[in-house]
């Protein structure tokens, strides 16, 4: 396991290898083209020193390997966003140490050339070989838009290739043009003469460029009025409607949530089962001892505990990409924007917030769609407050303790815990907006692209890509954490107490299996209580006492940093009912908990303690894997530490107020 230490890959193509850049407007079919050219050989990395992603992939052009760099979707190369600055730097050879690209492929949507040529015009000014790939040709045909490629090529001063990725038409020609670019057969472009003239007259540069694109399109693009009328407009009337739009949104998002939450359960169970079997299989061939425990509980358990996140990540990104491809996601952000803005979150924060109800990890990874850095940071900070599936076993345990014979009240307590998380997230977003990340949410400027059939291939590649990033960037950290936690709950070793040793001896003599089980349970309880984690739990007892918690709960809190639900199995061990009680006989755990007494003889799990524990688990960070992902997505441990700090403080104070108020009242 030594080689799993994360090594930062070279972010951009290696020095010396020629590379081509792929640029184009968002929604112009750039990703589809990139996937068609590179397929599974693509890698996602960040631009050096930023959290802006770019994808690179190797392509064989002619006979030589070439790197293809996919720039973020751009409307222009002005200076108005980090993406634009990074793209400009990459084209000028200022990003990394690779110099300038050998050529640029500009992807332009044939149905909307007048706008797409704005970016093309700016790229033409960069004095590099350029090839323009015209996409969406099938749509253009349906709309009866005809384009005179030859004169368009003359106007732009570069080769034009119409490409239809789905049928594969034009891909070969595009490769040929790329080869020509690499061998220097494509002339460097220069600013079109007419654009030169338009820009000289001291007017708004946007106007000058658009006057030029309008003129070019006037000459080369002919649209026939009898073309198919646009269905997008009719669909949008419903989907952006204040009432129907919201209903459509709710049903789409509920099905989306259903996929991520319920369907992912099955592969998660398989992964869990697989690793349990792998653990017991390996265990059979090894002698009892620390090495076996390290391998089975630490390493195999750790890998399983990391891979268990993959189904949700893959399913989330698969369906998210499909939704985005159809064009619906933009409408969803549009519909939610007004509501979300009230607490200082952008409309696009909704999908991450919804996903976080399954798990905060894919939720945080899904904040990539939010353009503004501060908007994105606020969203990431509050996401772990939303109730994820790992909290459910804890809620279930506490609700069962609170209302053993009143399922109605237990359900209400459950729902209350859910709402508390949601409300806390919105309130904290509101607070951050007024304190550490001040400023208004960036106003919405969002293209509503035409509806189209999504590409399953794109969605699959995206899911694989995200899974890879998770394993490479967060997986290793999660592994290290789980091994550290295993060590903390195993060491230092302690001798079992005399009476337990006697029980074991007696069980061996009389062959009493029940007695042996009992002795083993007592032994692991004792070992756990004396381990570093157990001692830490005892050490923090004075701190958590005002919340109504005793040292056993303290041990549970310490051990559940790996995953929240671990507190349930820890309590089972600590109360001597055995680890398996959680699945086999939860009632025995609950009975044990109810019967447990403080030193003065009063019960530990009073109503006040239970509610306080519930509030604590709703609000506390208690999940180190999430921290690893926060680090990867914000680019620094600083924000992960802040997230941990504020959530723990919030949980502590809320639990304190809850416990003290409830004890005072009763």
């Amino acid at each position, binding site marked *: 396991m030594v080689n799993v230490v994360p090594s930062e890959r070279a972010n951009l193509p290696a020095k010396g290898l020629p590379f081509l850049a792929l640029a184009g407007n968002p929604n112009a079919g750039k990703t589809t083209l990139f996937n068609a050219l590179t397929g599974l050989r693509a890698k996602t990395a960040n631009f050096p020193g930023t959290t802006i992603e770019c994808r690179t992939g190797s392509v064989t052009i002619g006979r030589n390997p070439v790197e293809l760099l996919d720039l973020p979707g751009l*409307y*222009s190369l*002005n*200076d*108005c*966003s980090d993406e634009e600055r990074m793209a400009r730097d990459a084209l000028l050879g200022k990003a990394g140490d690779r110099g300038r690209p050998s050529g640029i492929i500009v992807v332009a949507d044939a*149905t*909307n050339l*007048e*706008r797409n040529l*704005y*970016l093309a015009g700016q790229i033409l000014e960069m004095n590099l070989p350029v090839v323009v790939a015209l996409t969406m040709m099938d749509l253009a045909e349906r*709309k009866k838009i005809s384009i005179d490629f030859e004169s368009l090529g003359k106007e732009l001063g570069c080769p034009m290739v119409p490409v239809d990725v789905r049928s594969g038409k034009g891909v070969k020609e595009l490769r040929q043009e790329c080869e020509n670019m690499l061998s220097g057969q494509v002339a460097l472009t220069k600013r079109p003469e007419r654009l030169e003239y338009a820009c000289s007259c001291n*007017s*708004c540069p*946007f*106007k000058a460029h*658009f*006057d030029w694109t*309008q*003129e070019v399109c*006037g000459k080369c693009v002919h*649209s026939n*009025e009898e*073309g198919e*009328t*646009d269905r*997008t*407009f009719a669909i*949008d009337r419903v989907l*952006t409607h*204040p009432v129907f739009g919201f209903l459509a949104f709710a049903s789409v998002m509920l099905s989306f949530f259903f996929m991520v939450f319920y369907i992912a359960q099955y592969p998660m169970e398989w992964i869990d089962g697989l690793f349990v079997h792998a653990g017991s299989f390996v265990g059979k061939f090894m002698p009892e001892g620390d090495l076996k425990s390290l391998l089975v509980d630490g390493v195999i358990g750790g890998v399983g505990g990391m891979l268990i996140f993959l189904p949700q990540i893959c399913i989330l990104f698969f369906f998210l990409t499909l939704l985005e491809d159809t064009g619906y996601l*933009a409408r969803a*952000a*549009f519909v939610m*924007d*007004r509501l979300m803005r009230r607490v200082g979150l952008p409309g696009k924060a909704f999908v991450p917030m919804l996903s976080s109800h399954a798990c905060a990890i894919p939720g945080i990874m899904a904040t990539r769609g939010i353009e503004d850095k501060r908007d994105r940071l606020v969203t990431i900070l509050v996401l772990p407050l939303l109730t994820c599936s790992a909290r459910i076993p804890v809620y279930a345990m506490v609700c069962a303790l609170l209302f053993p014979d009143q399922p109605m009240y237990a359900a209400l307590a459950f729902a209350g815990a859910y709402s508390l998380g949601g409300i806390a997230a919105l309130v904290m977003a509101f607070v951050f907006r007024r304190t550490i990340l001040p400023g208004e949410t*960036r*106003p*919405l*400027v*969002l*293209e*509503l*692209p*035409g509806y189209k059939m999504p590409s399953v291939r794109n969605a699959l590649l995206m899911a694989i890509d995200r899974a890879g990033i998770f394993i490479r960037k967060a997986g290793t950290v999660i592994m290290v954490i789980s091994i550290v936690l295993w060590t903390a709950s195993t060491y230092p070793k302690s001798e079992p107490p005399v009476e337990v040793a006697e029980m074991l001896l007696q069980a061996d003599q009389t062959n009493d299996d029940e007695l042996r089980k009992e002795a083993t349970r007592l032994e692991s309880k004792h070992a756990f209580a004396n381990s570093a984690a157990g001692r830490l739990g005892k050490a923090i007892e004075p701190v958590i006492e005002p919340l109504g918690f005793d040292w056993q709960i303290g041990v549970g809190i310490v051990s559940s940093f790996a995953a929240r639900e671990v507190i349930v199995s820890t309590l089972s061990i600590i109360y001597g009912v055995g680890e398996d009680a959680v699945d086999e006989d939860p009632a025995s755990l609950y009975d044990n908990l109810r019967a447990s007494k403080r030193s003065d003889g009063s019960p530990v799990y009073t109503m006040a303690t239970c509610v306080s524990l519930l509030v604590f688990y709703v609000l506390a960070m208690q999940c180190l894997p999430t921290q690893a992902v926060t680090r990867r997505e914000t680019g620094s441990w600083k924000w992960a530490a802040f997230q941990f700090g504020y959530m723990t403080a919030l949980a502590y104070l809320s639990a304190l107020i809850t416990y003290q108020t409830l004890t005072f009242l009763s």
Partner: protein
Amino acid sequence: MPYTPNLAQNPSESTSLDKLKPGKCGYVVKVKAESDDIKKLMAMGVCEGRIIKLVHLGEPMILQVLGSRIGVSSRLGETVEVAPCEEDNCCEQGQCSEE
């Protein structure tokens, strides 16, 4: 030939975008603010010299420009000054046909 819209000649008739009736077009006379968001909007075609159509008035509003629809916060829309097109069919002549 660049398309020249038939405009109301009187400059006093220019108004902010949100005063336009939904479904009507206007010629952008000026964008009265400068920020990164405004620049993004301009790069999408909402800039001096273009004809835009107000598809839906509300928060956010929907504009149509250069063959694409854009959702825009109304506070940005308010900074766009337009001269309403006189003729109803100007959209069909120019860039902002419903395609």
